[in-house]
């Protein structure tokens, strides 16, 4: 598994005001976010699932372990933006993780505008980051100045000053340089490309950005869009972006083999994974326990189809 780096890093200064899962999330303690995640049975809380998935993505485990948890479709990966702006910060974090810098910036801006009193410091910090990434140094400094006014955010804000008008410093920073490399050379508008096409553009621009490929593939899987997933594998499997398939993608490839005999072999799926899938298929409709498949993608599909 490839190493991923801590990607948010803006909110650590704010954790003192949070508790429980919020505290772990703000602290970017992804292990703890995952450990503290609690499936709430019948109730579906998209934002909560999305936080779990973001934590998995940050650890480079989204496509490996997403289906170890009860998923709720693509809305659990990227919830719909609520007009009151409550989940705007989460969406900004998710887009940032994806490498979709402009949308992350947009959600940060929208969320800060809707802050009931003054500013949302975490989103101001995101605006600092995204503007630094885009090279919009003057407005980045405006946000830095605002964050410097608060003792809780001052140190972090001051630490960002070294990037102002300093492309070399940004290039030497693992986070900012990686995110800058995610910006597609060719501009597109939100009206021209939907999210999946935008993610494809990001992957092509920066194939090393693991979160983008994991989010894109998982998005197809959660929507059970097998045609798009097959095209996704055709495009990216074996490339720098996807040299080998993580677990969920392998399991989905097994399912594709039901329509195209032997397909799983062409995309490097292990014998063990395929055998597991065949066992699952044999048990379907027999009344035998399926419990041991609960953490598989094919179980997710079965469950979704039965609802």
């Amino acid at each position, binding site marked *: 598994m490839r190493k991923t780096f801590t990607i948010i890093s803006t909110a650590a200064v704010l954790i003192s005001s949070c508790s429980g899962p919020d505290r772990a999330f703000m602290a970017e303690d992804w292990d703890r976010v995952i450990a503290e995640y609690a499936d709430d049975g019948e109730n579906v809380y998209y934002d909560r699932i999305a936080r779990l998935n973001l934590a998995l993505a940050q650890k480079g485990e989204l496509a490996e372990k997403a289906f170890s948890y009860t998923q709720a479709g693509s809305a659990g990966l990227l919830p719909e933006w609520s007009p009151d702006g409550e989940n705007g910060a989460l969406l900004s974090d998710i887009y940032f993780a994806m490498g979709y810098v*402009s949308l992350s910036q947009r959600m940060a801006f929208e969320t800060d*505008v809707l802050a009931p009193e003054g500013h949302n410091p975490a989103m101001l910090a995101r605006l600092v980051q995204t503007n630094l990434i*885009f090279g919009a140094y*003057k407005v980045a400094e*405006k946000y830095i100045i605002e964050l410097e006014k608060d003792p809780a955010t001052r140190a972090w804000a001051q630490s960002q000053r070294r990037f102002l008008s300093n492309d070399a410093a940004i290039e030497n920073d693992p986070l900012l340089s990686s995110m800058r490399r995610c910006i*597609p*050379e060719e501009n597109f*508008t939100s009206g021209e490309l939907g999210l999946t096409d935008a993610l494809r553009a990001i992957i092509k621009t920066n194939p090393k950005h693991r979160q983008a490929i994991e989010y894109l593939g998982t998005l197809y899987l959660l929507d059970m869009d097998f045609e798009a997933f097959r095209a996704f594998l055709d495009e990216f499997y074996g490339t720098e972006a996807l040299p080998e398939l993580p677990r969920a993608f392998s399991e989905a490839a097994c399912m594709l083999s039901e329509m195209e005999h032997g397909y799983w072999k062409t995309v490097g799926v292990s014998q063990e994974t395929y055998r597991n899938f065949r066992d699952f298929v044999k048990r379907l409709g027999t009344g035998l326990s399926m419990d041991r498949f609960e953490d598989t993608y094919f179980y997710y599909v079965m469950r979704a189809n039965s609802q």
Partner: protein
Amino acid sequence: MIHRLKTILLPALALCITAACSVKIPSSYTQVDELPHIYPDIAKTTVPVNIAPLNFKLTDAVEKAVLSLECEGIQVLVKGPSFDIPSDGWKDLTSLCRDISARVYVQDGKSWKAYSAFTIHVSPDPIDPYVTYRLIEPGYETWNGIGLYQRCLEDFTQTAIIENSKTGTNCMNCHSFADRNPEKMVFHMRGQNGGTYIIDRDKVEKLNTKTPQTISALVYPQWHPDGRYIAFSVNDISQVFHSTDRNRIEVYDSMSDVVIYDVERHEVMSSPLLMSEDRFETYPSFSHDGMKLYFCTSPARQMPEEFKSVRYSICSIDFDPETATLGAKVDTLYSHGSAVFPRVSPDGRFMMFTETAYGCFPIWHKDAELRMIDLSDGAICDMSCINSPDVDSYHSWSSSSRWVIFSSRREDGLYTRLYISHMDKDGNFTKPFMLPQRDPDFSIGFFKSFNIPEFTRGKVVAQEDAIARCAVGDKGTDIRWKD
């Protein structure tokens, strides 16, 4: 006589101002041959005689500083490094001087140094005492507090004409005045309590302006100078967001026409020349004498696919206010890039507009610049003095035709600020200065944009509560289409 009076009074006045401040120029200092680093940049600007003090600060870290403003024997001393110039001293300077010399002294360790002096030129041309603008975050889809405000340019007083906290946190936009008359104003509210609002002194009228014959409710307005008519565009407006383009947001029309609203008859009319199926028409604006209607027009394009191909030209059509009839032909005045917001100076000599590479919403276009045509000979004027590398856009003429106030994003690339520049009779501009604020740091810590600056000759007297009551309690009057 005036000279004699000054001779007698000024030494006493200078003493008074200095003593009152208990600020002194250091007894010894080293003169350095450089200008101080200041914000906002007011050096070598030209200001109107009736403008509020141009407060500024030193941007270098300095413990102690003194500003000396001098002219004609008057001296005003101000303690720094953030200089809050006393208004009475400033008024003495601007009313009696043409060139104010500003010199900054700073403590440099144990000793003091004096920077080279810079000049602030005072123009005897007065500026309209008020400017109205909308304050809104330069955002994407959401807003929080929006309001229309009027700012007294002679001091720092800003008052709300209407804030959306009183009308359901709705959107409000597009205000316009009849010939800078504060008693005749129009603006829109959108969403909850939506409607077009006409203010006639202290009366407020709410209008429902969508008709079956028009593609939308009324949008971008400009009053006829006599106050009877208002030209509007009607637009199908959308916006998309850029992924990498430094312009961030694209706002475009998929359809648009121009209509004229009769304030007295509650009727809207137009001409096939302003409502062409295969053209976009927008941003109407009457000539100074009300006999022509200028507007911007482009061949219609498939939107949003072709948004970068849309180029607006500035055209005109005759208008007879006596009979409310439009002419039978359209003349093209300017056709280069995409030209929008045509505004004729009140004396009729010049037309200023905004030019960008494409499209109709230049506040999101970094390349947007102000342009001007001398209508007496069609010459294009040199505007390099007031344009910047960033967005320079919406503009408004003062009643005297000697001042313009315009929107610019030159400060940080995003938050629109207002700048004022003087123009002489030949169309030459001076270095613009930012709308003065009491606190020099105001703009840095302010997170809203100033939209649509419009001068007025006085204060809007309509009460905010009356406007809010009308918005919330009045169903509004439907306007009619006149064939």
